[in-house]
């Protein structure tokens, strides 16, 4: 396993970590030298590994000519989402829990700074999803793949424009908002 080098680790945190592996603090390797120049992303493939079987393409499209896609994969029985932008893998996640109480689970993926991807799973009690942005009226987001008792969805916008994703029940009532999560992602001061 390759290692991750910590930088700028406060001495206080390191001292606290030395209290023992069971105590809160930071688990780290020795401090490295200054950061090297920016390197290109190494995530070179959006092709699932041999243990992953593609279940469906949840959604695909383009933002300012940059293609994106989110696939639903079966990975040893886990339902996972694999996103890609410009045919390079970006975010990945598995088995997002949903329930009637928390009917939508969303990941926010800006690993390629040209496209902001929002994708996830919805409980069957969700009748509609609305993507809200600074640039226009809310637009419907389709739940395109249903598997494992959940529906999956994905959409993409230009970074800096997303404001919320809301879910409606069959009576048109709003039952979920991802506004906090999207705001925490999009707001540069937080």
């Amino acid at each position, binding site marked *: 396993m390759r290692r991750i080098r910590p930088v700028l680790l406060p001495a*206080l945190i390191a001292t606290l970590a030395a209290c023992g592996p*069971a105590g809160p603090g*930071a*688990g780290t390797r020795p401090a490295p030298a200054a950061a090297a120049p920016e390197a290109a992303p190494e*995530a070179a493939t959006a092709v699932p590994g041999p243990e992953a079987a593609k279940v469906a393409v949840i959604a695909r499209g383009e933002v300012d000519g940059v293609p994106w896609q989110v696939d639903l994969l079966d990975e040893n029985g886990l339902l*996972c989402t694999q996103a890609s932008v410009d045919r390079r893998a970006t975010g990945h996640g598995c088995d997002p829990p949903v329930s009637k109480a928390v009917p939508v689970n969303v*990941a926010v993926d800006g690993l390629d700074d040209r496209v902001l991807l929002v994708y996830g799973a919805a409980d069957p009690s969700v009748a509609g999803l609305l993507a809200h942005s600074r640039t226009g009226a809310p637009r419907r987001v389709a739940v395109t793949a249903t598997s494992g008792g959940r529906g999956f969805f994905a959409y993409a916008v230009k970074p800096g424009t997303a404001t919320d994703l809301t879910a409606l029940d069959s009576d048109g009532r709003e039952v979920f908002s991802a506004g906090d999560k999207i705001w925490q992602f999009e707001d540069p001061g937080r």
Partner: protein
Amino acid sequence: MFRKVLSTITIAATTVLVAGLSTGSAQATDFWQAWGSGSYHASADFVPTGGLVHIGGWACEGGSAHSFYVSLVKTSGSQKVFSSYSWDVDGRDHVDPRGIGVNTSTAYYLRWYGNGSAPCSKAFATN
């Protein structure tokens, strides 16, 4: 950046208060940071040495938080690049297993967000 420094100081102070709590982690990780009570935390910085990094976290029950998620943030400019799915506060490790594409030689840090306060929490990253 000020928020992050402030958070780190808060983390350290809180950590002193709750030292001795278990992290509950059996997963081998290359970078991790644990905290005491709170609904938002920011970690120290780290540099991934591989192009794929797995991020995850953990939180213990007993507070108002029922779910949490972890964000990966570029240190330079505090640019958030990925926010994970939300996971249950259940005392278990949760991780995005395949990994997400990152730049090597670029410093990142992790943010832990709860939908309320958890008595203890952790975020981690591994190649």
